[in-house]
């Protein structure tokens, strides 16, 4: 399986999304799942290959610094698989009418394609293009709920999204002007000379804000609670769980390859801490389950930012653990919140008539709180031990904040559990829908599998982190030995 298959990862879903309306009759419904399965199959084949040697594809055989290059190491392979499978689980099986369903399915396919592209793209501009594609798809999906509230929330999301995209573009042009290239490997090579100065950092900050919108970075995440609360649970699960991780991955690529500077790390750390604080405490007062989950996802992503800010492979391992754990837990919670959304009073005593989903809800909450046997604990342990290894000051403050906010998190999450298992005869809570239970069941199964095989997964996680942290290998793998414009 040669490296040209990488191109299929973004290409297949995009192709399928446009061909979808042409496919006649019942087969149309199967187009989406099939393409996703294909992408998953590619990812699975890719995974063993990239363990030792990351795969590079120069599209159209243009020499790397010029054309578009796709680079896939073990992390991006994992994310490709994750994109395919999670989109499959959160696939829109039913719609109000045929036309609506077509639109939803094609948009979801575009989103999947864009995310796949983000995972494997090797140059800055390509990242920007796929990011914009994902943004547009998410605008469409978010507005899909057809309610007034959804429209307003999406409009605010569009405003912030587009403004930040301009910032990102400005940042990329700055970098291009400075270095003359957009290829990540080439940039990594030139960065120490050209970009490690205030101008470079400014560019990085602008790109950070740009990409930060989707990754719910603190300064630009005001849109998140409204969109997640009003959009369909499936869509919010997809956006909060999957797409935000891909944006985060892009930012981390930049950080690791081009700007491994302390200022950049501090920026990420500070914004991450603010994200945690604002997310957790805002969720403390939330009375609406979906809005509360939105804020808690902001907080979790803040924690991921803090984790990735830690220098060295330890930081990457912690970040990956937190991000992947959030990827598993949040979509499932959003699926459950589909029928159990709205105020807490409405779901009092829901555990009695849908005990399974209530049990799953409790399982996910316990994992998020970091109760030992579940993987949430190992993620939090890695994060905290990584932070503690750093010298005192800001790092330890971040650790303290994480510890304190977990207490707040426990209170508002247990408030929901208390409501579920409370006893109020005047309220008849809605029972769960089949798709929600099955979807969250799959996630729960994966979660428990990871919990029981935690000792076995420790090694591959470390290997991924080491491979990702090694920028020199990245450069060597992508670029030919001698390059114009670079003093030997």
């Amino acid at each position, binding site marked *: 399986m040669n490296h040209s298959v990488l191109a299929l990862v973004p290409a297949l879903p995009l192709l399928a999304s446009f061909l979808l309306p042409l496919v006649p009759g019942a087969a149309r419904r199967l187009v989406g799942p099939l393409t996703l399965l294909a992408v998953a199959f590619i990812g699975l084949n890719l995974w063993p290959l990239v363990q030792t040697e990351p795969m590079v594809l120069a599209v159209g055989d243009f020499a790397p610094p010029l054309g578009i290059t796709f680079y896939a190491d073990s992390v991006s392979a994992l994310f490709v698989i994750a994109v395919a499978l999670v989109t499959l689980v959160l696939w829109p099986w039913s719609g109000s009418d045929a036309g609506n369903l077509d639109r939803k399915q094609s948009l979801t396919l575009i989103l999947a394609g864009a995310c796949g592209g983000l995972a494997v793209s090797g140059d800055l501009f390509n990242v920007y293009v796929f990011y914009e594609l994902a943004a547009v798809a998410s605008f469409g999906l978010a507005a899909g709920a057809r309610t007034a509230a959804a429209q307003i929330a999406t409009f605010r999301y569009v405003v912030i999204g587009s403004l930040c995209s301009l910032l990102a573009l400005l940042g990329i042009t700055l970098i291009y002007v400075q270095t003359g290239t957009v290829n990540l490997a080439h940039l990594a090579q030139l960065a120490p000379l050209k970009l490690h100065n205030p101008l470079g950092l400014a560019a990085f900050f602008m790109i950070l804000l740009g990409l930060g919108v989707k990754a719910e970075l603190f300064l630009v995440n005001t849109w998140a609670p409204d969109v997640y609360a009003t959009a369909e649970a499936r869509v919010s699960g997809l956006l909060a769980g999957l797409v935000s991780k891909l944006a985060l991955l892009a930012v981390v690529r930049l950080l690791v390859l081009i700007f491994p500077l302390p200022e950049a790390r501090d920026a990420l750390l500070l914004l991450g801490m603010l994200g945690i604080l604002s997310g957790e405490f805002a969720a403390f007062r939330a009375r609406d389950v979906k809005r509360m989950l939105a804020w808690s996802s902001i907080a979790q992503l803040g924690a991921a930012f803090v984790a990735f800010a830690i220098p060295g492979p330890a930081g990457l391992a912690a970040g990956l653990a937190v991000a992947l754990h959030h990827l598993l837990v949040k979509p499932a919670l959003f699926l459950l919140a589909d029928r159990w959304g709205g105020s807490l009073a409405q779901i009092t005593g829901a555990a009695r008539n849908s005990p399974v989903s209530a049990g799953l809800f409790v399982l996910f909450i316990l994992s998020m709180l970091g109760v030992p046997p579940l993987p949430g604990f190992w993620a939090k342990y890695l994060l905290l031990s990584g932070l503690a290894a750093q010298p005192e000051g800001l790092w330890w403050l971040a650790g303290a904040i994480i*510890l304190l906010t977990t207490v707040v998190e426990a209170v508002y999450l247990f408030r929901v559990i208390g409501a579920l298992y409370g006893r109020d005869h005047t309220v008849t809570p809605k029972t769960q829908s089949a798709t929600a239970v099955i979807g969250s069941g799959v996630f729960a199964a994966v979660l428990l599998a990871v919990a029981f095989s935690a000792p076995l997964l420790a090694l591959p996680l470390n290997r991924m982190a080491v491979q990702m942290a090694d920028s020199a290998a990245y450069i060597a793998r992508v670029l030919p030995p001698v390059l114009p414009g670079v003093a030997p």
Partner: protein
Amino acid sequence: MTSLDLLLILSGLTTLAGFAFGNHRAYPWLAGIVLTAQIVILASMPLPMAAGFGFEMFGHPVGWQMDGFGRFFALITLGAALASVAYTGGEWGERYAAGGKNLRWLHGALAGNVLAMLLLLASGDLIAFFIGWELTSWAGFLLMAQGGERALRAAMRYVPYAMAGAMAVLGGLVLSLTWTGTLDLSQLVMLVPGLANWKLALLLALFGTGFAIKMGLLPVHLWQTPAYAEAPGAATAFLGAISSRMGLFGFGLLLVKLITLTRLADLSFIDGLFSARDLIEWVAALTIVLPTFTALKQNDARYLLAWHGIGQSGYMLLGLVIGDATGSAGGLLHVFNHATYQAALVLSVFAVMHRTGTADLNSMGGLVTRMPLTFLVMLLGIIGLAGLPPMNGFVSKWLIYRSLMIEGRPLLFLMTVLGTLGTILSVYKLIHNTFLGQLRAEHEQIREAPWSMLVPMLALVALAFVTGVAPGLALNYVNEAQAALGLPVMAHTLGGVESPRGSLDMLWIVGVLFAGFGIGALLFYGAGGRSKRIHQLDNYAGGHFLSADVRYQYSDHFYAGLMHRIGPLYRGSFTQMEAALASANDLLASLMQAWYRQAVPALTLLIATVLGLAWMIWR
């Protein structure tokens, strides 16, 4: 498959069985047999016994290992669980299930608690310790939340405390990992004392907060009373007897093994005047006195006993922290003693509730003629709780007093005795308002508690009496725990302590006491003439003709005189502190939420970018 694995697997199976068919009639018998088997295995287990299974996480081995200190606590846990299961199995359980509550969850939660505690007590390294710690607090939460509406509210109040404690311990774990590079307890014991003072202080603060919350030491004790009082019958007995002692297990590990008492004394706040060890001793002393005098004012028997549970834990910690042979033996023995009579007292209160339907001290009275055996259990229980001779409570308190005398700590000695006197006052109010005084008309027909409830109660009280008369039996295990902790071991005889400077021989004291009672009875029945039993209304009332419709009983505001003097001291300052914390939390939350409701996102974005760039450029 070592015997420790067998132990853990057995309790794991009981938990599953509990959740699966806890409401089945056969379950209590099964659980009882398994628990007794576990006790036998544990008692006969050669120490230290490493567990078979374990795994390695991120380069640190995670395994379980039982030593003398863990075994002492594990034996008490299994014993308390046995008594609770036996109590729940009988008629109490039927009525609990008939009342619409889920007996399976109760049995499952109870067995789950035992499993979690065994995991905690047998932990070989900090990660295993943390796993056991978290599971214990969440299993405890599950057990507390079974009792219905008020119990759920009390359990919800426990959640932030439990989580804060867990996070403090996790913080300590991570810090000790970074400083010493290892998580294995045996290595930590060598490395931790070597750390700098400020590091030890930080470790003490973090681990100490976590263990203090679980034990209910003074500033963080408010959650324990409603949570333990509102839990259903046998669950309260189990929680009251052993659950909060896991905090003491942590303290024992932390203070004596890791930081060692000598290093503890070096961590001084005001240049050598007031060391951390004094601080812990005084927190323990205040925890003895203040909850005891709060118990004095309670009008609900369950709350009174729950407050005493907090008070007595002060004795254990004080004994442990004094650290000399008699003091630590007293502290550890008090864990066992308190478990026996606290469980018996709580079970007797619930037996009374089973019959009269209430635990309110002002709506009972005169039940001694209707429930004599329950009265006997409560009587021996309160003698134990108050720490008076024939019962075992006296021995452990005597040891603590003796060590305070030898160490020369007059004020601490004064506080401990003040606690004992307060306990005597409040337990007399408990037994007087429940069993003595005028019997109410509606209680004339009630019967003695059923045998299924009486047997565990009587067994517990008999155990307390036997270990009171012959404390040597319990002191063997205490010596084992002292050795495991590295404390000086106290030489003891069967009757008590033999030392030239002041010995205690309970065999003789109790023997003489009962000889005295015998002579008293001889004098009373022999010398005195016949006496006739008279009705409660045939009573002196200043010439007034008593009739049943006028309630001729003194129970409300029982210590009016005392309350005139110390009444104003009850200002509820701890509750206000907790409320202030909660409102600060709400304020911060509303501020943060305001950030997300901002009207013009673009403006904030602009400001943010400008600030970011400025920061980036001029750093």
